[in-house]
């Protein structure tokens, strides 16, 4: 018996990626995809890659009846008003916005500039990070999937933090493609303006730094730059190794943390063209590649992380969380391995 699923915010970039993945998922029957703007029109109107793969049409969000699983892919600050009304429409709810990621409503207000509208719900959400919270996810009915750059940074830094190998602050330098800002762009997103840009759109205090701190326990200083790419996030995370920690401890920490992980690969090689994580070869795949480099001279470590912001940085990660929650094989719906060259 299949499980029914609905995607709220199905006309957006994350919504489209959810639809793509759920259509290929052996246990899921995707029944509803919402869009107010495109209600009644075929889903492939917004997602031309799905032509020939589905005959679904968009449902107006107001007409949503319910499903076993709800994926919410709506804008932040709007989602916190939506979610309370959605809770009884599905058994499991996965939110991909920023609204239920931060446990502390004060931190939320600091980073999103508005008061949280449903602070009581915050504690009921489990962070959608399989590599850190797999056990809790098996029983979670409300899952909040982290931000794309946050996921890359958390997975890049986690082995160091978990093993207590680093001291103090983590500096995160993030680069992202244009799909990270969603399908509703402003004038700065026009191709002629954005193409080939290196745009430091967040020179400091990017919102995701609060998520990184929450997950790793380390203060975080983060910048974010838009570079030429549609999909793809890369983070460079620097931290000081604590005394006694060196290349061997670092390598061991990564191996231990990720040996059994289906979607994290350690990439830190000495030869070849792709020596460290590069999102170029990850488009469409659910991998997060991570790789540490230790400066033997001065005891700092740089951990590189890369992923596809719409997959492991969003829709794919949500599907992986659901697979864990339902007890399905973790790879279901996530078999695509990425392309090279591309």
């Amino acid at each position: 018996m299949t499980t029914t699923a609905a995607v709220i915010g199905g006309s957006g970039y994350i919504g489209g990626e959810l639809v793509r993945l759920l259509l290929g998922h052996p246990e899921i029957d995707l029944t509803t995809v919402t869009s107010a703007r495109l209600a009644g029109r075929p889903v492939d109107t917004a997602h031309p890659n799905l032509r020939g793969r589905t005959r679904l049409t968009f449902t107006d969000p107001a007409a949503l009846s319910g499903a076993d699983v709800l994926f919410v892919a709506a804008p932040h600050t709007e989602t916190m008003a939506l979610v309370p009304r959605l809770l009884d429409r599905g058994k499991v709810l996965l939110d991909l916005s920023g609204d239920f990621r931060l446990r502390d409503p004060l931190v939320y207000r600091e980073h999103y500039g508005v008061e949280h509208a449903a602070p009581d719900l915050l504690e009921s959400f489990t962070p959608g990070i399989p590599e850190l919270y797999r056990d809790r996810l098996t029983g979670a009915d409300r899952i909040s999937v982290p931000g794309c750059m946050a996921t890359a940074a958390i997975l890049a830094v986690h082995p160091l933090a978990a093993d207590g190998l680093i001291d103090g602050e983590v500096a995160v330098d993030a680069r992202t493609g244009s799909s990270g800002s969603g399908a509703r762009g402003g004038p700065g997103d026009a191709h002629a303006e954005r193409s080939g840009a290196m745009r430091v759109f967040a020179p400091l205090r990017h919102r995701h730094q609060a998520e990184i701190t929450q997950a790793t326990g380390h203060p975080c200083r983060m910048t974010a730059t838009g570079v030429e790419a549609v999909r793809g996030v890369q983070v460079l995370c620097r931290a000081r190794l604590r005394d006694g920690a060196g290349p061997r401890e670092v390598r061991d920490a990564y191996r231990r943390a990720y040996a059994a992980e289906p979607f994290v690969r350690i990439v830190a090689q000495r030869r070849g063209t792709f020596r460290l994580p590069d999102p170029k070869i990850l488009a469409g795949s659910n991998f997060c590649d991570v790789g540490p480099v230790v400066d033997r001279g001065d005891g700092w470590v740089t951990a590189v992380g890369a992923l596809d912001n719409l997959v492991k940085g969003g829709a794919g990660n949500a599907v992986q969380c659901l697979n864990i929650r339902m007890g399905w094989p973790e790879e279901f719906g996530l078999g695509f391995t990425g392309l090279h060259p591309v």
Partner: protein
Amino acid sequence: MTTTCPECFETVTAPAEPVLHEILECAECRGELEVVSTAPLLVALAPEVAEDWGE
């Protein structure tokens, strides 16, 4: 009439008779400055329109 931009500390020149809540643009940092007092001339930074990438 002039005052100082609270963002970049460049001198900002207002029209001869500035109006309360009028918006000026700082020539240096291009910040939007709201006139919050006319005598003396005081301006405050209007909120920045941030880009919303990488969520």
